[in-house]
Each structure stands twice: as structure tokens, then as C-alpha cells.
């Protein structure tokens, strides 16, 4: 596999919603390449026809009664918010007016 570049690190950081500092971007590029190099061995392993495992223990979909039940108290949840007003979470402006 090709080396991970600084530009790719910047792109991935954007996808992950991380504002990395310049220093972090450089360190991250170096460290991730060390790790990915180590994982090169995987590419040499033939996995043709092997089905992937997402969950190790077989499970079936779980259904429950479609019944109403109390939800968590709104005041208690809003109390933990960095900023709240009335019944709402407050965030910086999203749409320009």
C-alpha cells in the first residue's frame, strides 16, 4: 500500500471533525505510517472466499412491545448541556441570515 500523505491526513481529520494543529498533523502522519506498515502483513494473507465477521457471537434481531414508557427528564438532560435555553440546546449559528 502507498504511504499515507500529509494531505490525506488533513482529509481524514476533516472527515473525523478534528481540527489538528500543524504539529499534530505531522506526528499523526508519521505514527499512522508506522502502524500501517506493521499491518502490511495482512495483505500477504490470502482471504479469498472468507466471509467477514462483524459479530463473533450469532445473534438475531430483538423486538419489543411497541409500548410507551417514560423518557429521561428533560431538565436533567439539559442541565448537562454546555449551553441550553428553555427547552433547547444552544449552538453557534448554522445558517447565515
Amino acid at each position: 500500500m502507498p504511504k499515507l500523505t500529509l494531505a490525506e491526513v488533513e482529509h481524514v481529520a476533516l472527515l473525523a471533525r478534528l481540527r489538528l494543529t500543524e504539529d499534530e498533523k505531522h506526528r499523526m502522519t508519521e505514527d499512522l505510517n508506522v502502524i500501517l506498515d506493521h499491518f502490511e502483513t495482512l495483505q500477504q494473507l490470502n482471504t479469498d472466499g472468507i466471509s467477514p465477521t462483524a459479530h463473533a457471537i450469532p445473534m438475531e434481531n430483538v423486538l419489543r412491545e411497541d409500548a410507551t414508557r417514560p423518557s429521561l427528564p428533560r431538565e436533567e438532560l439539559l442541565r448537562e448541556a454546555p449551553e441550553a435555553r428553555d427547552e433547547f440546546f444552544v449552538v453557534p449559528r448554522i445558517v447565515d441570515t
Partner: protein
Amino acid sequence: MPELWELSATELRAAVGRGEVSCREVALAHLGRIELVDERVRAFVTVTEEEALAQADRWDAARARGEELPPLAGVPVALKDNMCTRGIRTTCASKVLGDWRPPYDATVTSLVREAGGVLVGKTNMDEFAMGSSTENSGLFPTSNPWDLERVPGGSSGGSAAAVASRMAPLALGSDTGGSIRQPGALCGVVGFKPTYGRVSRYGLVAYASSLDQIGPFARSVADAALLLRVIARPDPLDNTSAPVETPDYSAGLTGDVRGLRIGVPKEYCAEGVTGEVRGAVEAALDRYRELGAEVSETSTPHVEHALASYYLIAPAEASSNLARYDGVRYGFRAPGARDVVDMFQVSRDLGFGDEVKHRIMLGTYALSAGYYDAYYLKAMQVRTLVKQDLERCWERFDVLVTPTTPEVAFRKGEKLNDPMAMKLADVCTLPINLAGTCAVSIPCGFQNGLPIGLQIIGRPFEEGTVLRAAQAYEQTTDWHRRAPEL
């Protein structure tokens, strides 16, 4: 007469039941012990003195009324700080959660409390359970009680250190790639990772959802069995919790392993495992032979690829799970953002520590367009091979025995600057998470005063067999009775 904090959970529960000691005395003894030694060990993020005394008084009152007491009545329990406790801050050792007070209890928190367990505190960990030394805690590092210059292992290092240093007889941890068993081994205590689905994860802060599982720490197999029985039950609030019966694990501890078929997968004792660790494991296998078990070598050839598979799957799942920390509904928000995306990005960059950001980046990359097949899909295929290796073993063996870790506790800082070195600490434990099955680490010796761990692996949902094998060995040794000097 031993101090109350020296007693096992089983002994404490019995003494409470006979009325020889009150739950309040037990709680105060452990709170006093925490006060005395935690300054040096630093296992606790939060000590819950009020909660502990209130719970203790509740069970003392119940006993005074002549009520039948539940299985953990008056027994102090510590919880890893990634398990939600209503109204009590739950940090995950991350600045991103800050002083977050959950509005609900994790299912394990409720089960422990209903069973009479007395919560003495929340324990330190690697941030979001990512790490093997508790040095990645966003708050402070924890020390190994056997040598304060060394790490306790991780990520559940606080829980392991709390139990080893007699600040609580029982604790819960979570294990995604070894985070219960590895610190259990390094601190010289019993650490049990149940089968995926055995214990509800409702209210456990998610790291890698196809791998995470909660399990007990204790200073004896009997105590671990006691706590496992309390927490192992199906939960309608966790759709991955398995609809299986909970056996009476304590009743299954017969000490009899005659005819038990033990497989020793040779790949686990390969490169990197020190001679001392290898010697201790071989001596334990000799002991099993003396006890009448049949021990033979076997092979799990794909173990060498398990580490790479794990370190693609776990970060991929983490990158998705940790997307929720956005500074909107709870936790940390960076001040002065220009707009909402800026707020997400800066809050996350300042809130998460280095290791967490590394794993988010690695996982996001492995899942991103163009790399999905080469990394994530490949890792899931290798996971199948690792799982099939173990399934083949179950045709011939009842349990498998390996070292828990390649070496004893390492020095603080020793592995911090090499991105691969720390990951190799989990090389013997993480295949078990990939396969979803159960395993325990128990003490099997010492090297220069530092504990060595023996890993016993069982078939899915056959925790009872693993516990029986562990206890049969334990009762022929005194490793688990040794205590660090603090």
C-alpha cells in the same frame, strides 16, 4: 485478626450475614484504606463516600429488620469510570466528558447495587479504554501497587490496582482487547472477561461495540464467580445481550479437573514472551497434569494476524462511536467558535487526548472510500480465521491455556513513544475478543516481585468451566494471597 479490608468478598458477606460486623464498618474500613494508600496508587478518579455509607446503612437497616440479605450485601465494589452512575460524575478519564453526571445508571451499576454491593468509587482508566497502561488517562496515571514506578496495565488499570491494593475486594472493568485480563495479570489479581453478550453493556461508554464486554476483578476465583453471577443476565436494554441462563458459578467450583482437556496453542508462547513468563506458564501446566488434567499442544496459526485485525476493527468502530462527542448535548465545548462545524472540530481536538485522536484517525482512514476493502474488510475476514482457529480447538479441548501477557509490568513511560510497543502488550488477549469468547487471567507466579498472569480460555458461554479450571489451580498455590506492601 485481619483488618476488614484484607478480607475477601465472600468472607465479608459471611461476616455481615452472621452479624459479626456491620456494613457501615466494612465501608468505613475500605474508605479508610483508600484514604491511606490511594495518594500513592491513584486508582480512583472519584471516591463515593456518601453513596457508600448510604448503601451500607440501607443493608444494616435491612438486617436489623430481619430481612434476607442479597449476595453482595455490604461488600465494597469499585466501578471503572466508563460505567454510568446516575448523578455521580463519569469521566471515561477524558476531558471531553469533563464532569458529566449521567442521568441514568448502567445496567451493571443497578445490578451491583440491588445485589447489596456498596459503591466506593469510580476508577481510573486509559481514556475511552484505549491503552494498556492507564498512562493514557486524560486525568493522571495510576501506579502498580507492586512497584509504584511501574504501570498497572490497562485500560482498566484503576480497577485492577484498587483490588490488588485492598481498597476494594471487588471491581468491574471492561475488556475490548485485554483491558481486564492484562491489568489483572500485571497487578496480580483475577480478571475475567465473559463471553460477548453475557453481561449487559447498557450504560457502558462504547469504545468498540463488537468487542467490548464488562467483567469482574477479584482477589480469588470464588469472589470473581460471586460477582459474575450478579452481573450476568439478559437485559432488554441491550440488544446484544444474549438470552441465556445464568448458572450458579460458585456451586461449580469443585476443584476437580480430572480428565479436563487442556490445549496449549503454541503460537501464544512465541516471540516476545519472556523466559520467566514462559517458565511460570509451564509450571502451571505441570500442576494441571498433577491434578489429573490432560495437557497437549495445539495450534492457532492465524494469531499472528490478530493484532493487525484488531487494530483496524477496534479503531474503525471507535471512530463511529466517538462521533457523538460534539460539544452540543453534554461534556466539553471549546469556547469562541466561529460556527457550528468549527465548534465540533475544536472541541474534539482539545477534548480528546493523543491516543484517542490516533485511533479515531486510523479508524476513519480504514473506513474511508478507497481503503475499506484493503483494511476494514480484510480485517473482518482475518477475524473469521482467528475465530475458526479457536472453534477447531473446541473439538478437542475444554479450555486453552496461555500467558496473559508477554512480560510483567513495565516502567511508566517505557512504551509511550513507540506506537506499536504498547499494542504488543495485548497480543495474547485480543484474539479472544475477536472470537467473542470468555477468558480469565489468574496469578501464576512472580518475577522480581512482579506478578505473572495465566490466561485460561473457554468455549463461548462456558464461563463455568473456565472458573472451575482457574479455581482448581488457585487452591494449590498461594500467589493470590500475596499482597503488595503499601
